[in-house]
């Protein structure tokens, strides 16, 4: 496979949030490495996802469960369903290592989620650790840092 370019990375990130906005979760699950993790820290500058509380630190089993639940017949908090919307800045490409097949991007975005009469906005920074596997880019770690991570929230039901 030819080298991954800056544009390839940026396209990948735009496509990822589009899948989330469209609710194409099965496709979204294909974007991950087998041991990929989605991390949303609870604390500003939190370093440890394991030994202190995070909002999310989910492996592929938990992510599968999360998206499977969203379409369940008895998922009461999704009657009616939530919708979401990402507005992203052009991602910063902080690392391109084609030799090792490793890449890192940092993307600032606004995330809007709505259900019934309620809508809320989260400002956040997403850091993606990407790897190249069998010619495709995969997410090894997605870290989502909320600007107001220390605020009290109601339900956040979809994924920023």
């Amino acid at each position, binding site marked *: 496979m030819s080298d991954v370019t800056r544009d390839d990375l940026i396209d990948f990130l735009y496509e990822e949030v589009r899948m989330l906005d469209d609710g194409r979760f099965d496709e979204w699950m294909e974007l991950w490495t087998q041991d990929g993790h989605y991390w949303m820290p609870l604390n500003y500058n939190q370093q440890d996802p394991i030994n202190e509380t995070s909002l999310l630190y989910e492996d592929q089993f938990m992510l599968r469960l999360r998206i*499977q639940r969203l379409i369940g017949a008895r998922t009461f908090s999704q009657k009616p369903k939530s919708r979401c919307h990402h507005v992203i800045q052009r991602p910063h490409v902080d690392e391109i290592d084609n030799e090792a097949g490793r890449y890192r991007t940092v993307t600032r975005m606004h995330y809007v989620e709505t259900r019934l009469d309620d809508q809320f906005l989260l400002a956040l920074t997403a850091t993606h650790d990407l790897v190249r596997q069998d010619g495709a880019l995969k997410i090894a770690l997605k870290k989502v840092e909320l600007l107001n991570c220390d605020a009290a929230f109601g*339900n956040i039901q979809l994924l920023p």
Partner: protein
Amino acid sequence: MAHYETRAEIEGLVTPFQVHRDIYIDQDVYRQEMKHLFANAWVYVGHDSQTPNKGDYYTTQIGDQPVIMVRHTDNEIKVLYNRCPHKGTKIAIDRQGNTGKFFRCPYHAWSFKTDGCLLAIPLKKGYEGTGLSDTENGKGMKAVGAVHNYRGFVFARLASEGIAFEEYFNDSLSSLDNMVDRSPAGRLEVVGAPLRYMHQCNWKMLVENQTDTCHPMVAHESSAGTAVQIWKDMGFTDDDPKPAAMEIIAPFMSAYEFFEDMGIRTWPNGHGHTGVHHSIHSKYSEIPGYMEALTAAHGKEKAEAILAENRHNTVYFPNIMIKGPIQQLRNFIPLAADRTLAESWIFRLVDAPEELTARTALYNRMINAPTSIVGHDDLEMYERAQEGLHADGLEWVNIQRLYQEGEDFETEAVENGTTERQMRNQFHAWVKFMTVSMTQKEAAE
């Protein structure tokens, strides 16, 4: 005109097996709860590991009262109203910090020792001969009525007179003891920040839900049921070793029988717990090195006895819940009749393997976060109830499951794990602490 000013009106809201909906939706009832219930009860403030050094403070609230928990120069924990005696400015705004030897108000620089006593006022001669020192404000920041630090857990009673700590909690302290005894050093430490989860519902709905054993397999079918199904689809059976996340979530789907058999214990003054004989925490796998550490500290027999207790949720009336086997505390802070902040704290067992902390953190984010697939359905139920209670067709809420005539809440009892007795126990205590300080006039009317 405000309602619910008299003893008779308050008592009229609670029958042996029904409570009136105004208990959840009426602003006057809420105001009376803040004035009476949260002043007369012993309310959880914080853990002393949050303020390990002299001058360390932590700001929170007791009911709707802003308070500061602070470690004084004599190493004792003090709880002060967070309000300057001069013009009312909040003294501390940070959630935590260190104030050194004294607090200094940011407005006109009155300063106070960490037990609240007035230390200095700039240009003090301006008060000479004015009689300031004869006023209550001239003495300094006001302390709450009483404070008790029980093995690191700090409780306070706002009222200066009232029930003693030991009488209020009595045998229910066995749940706190078990949680603390799980540390080989007999000490817990708060880990990290709490989850802060906002609920547009009455605080009592969250407290009642802690011993509501007939909802997990229904409300949480969407998460726990789906987890069990995915596990099966992956080709595993119930007997295969499970990852920690599955160990945590699968038992939510246990059959009614499991919950019936687990038992519920109630104590006087509104305290009680689920999981007398076993619980959803019973089958967690052993963490290497833990039993050895506990045995070295306590001896084999006591170590085994400590781990044989797997109490599920212990409610300390009025508004916290602890989970011993998970080392968790949830604080349901009332903000309005229809608004509650649920804070979920976790603890490290000092001198125990760090893997226990990892499991505790996993449990906290999986079950109690605003992003939790379990929490989502709980919140949905509470908020639907908060809205539904405004329907005028029926005015009463039913808490009658396994009700027996003439229930006596002044003695400890152990019953079928699906009873709603603990909810009835809470409302019995609710009436008691709502009315105990009502004036003669309020009582007579």
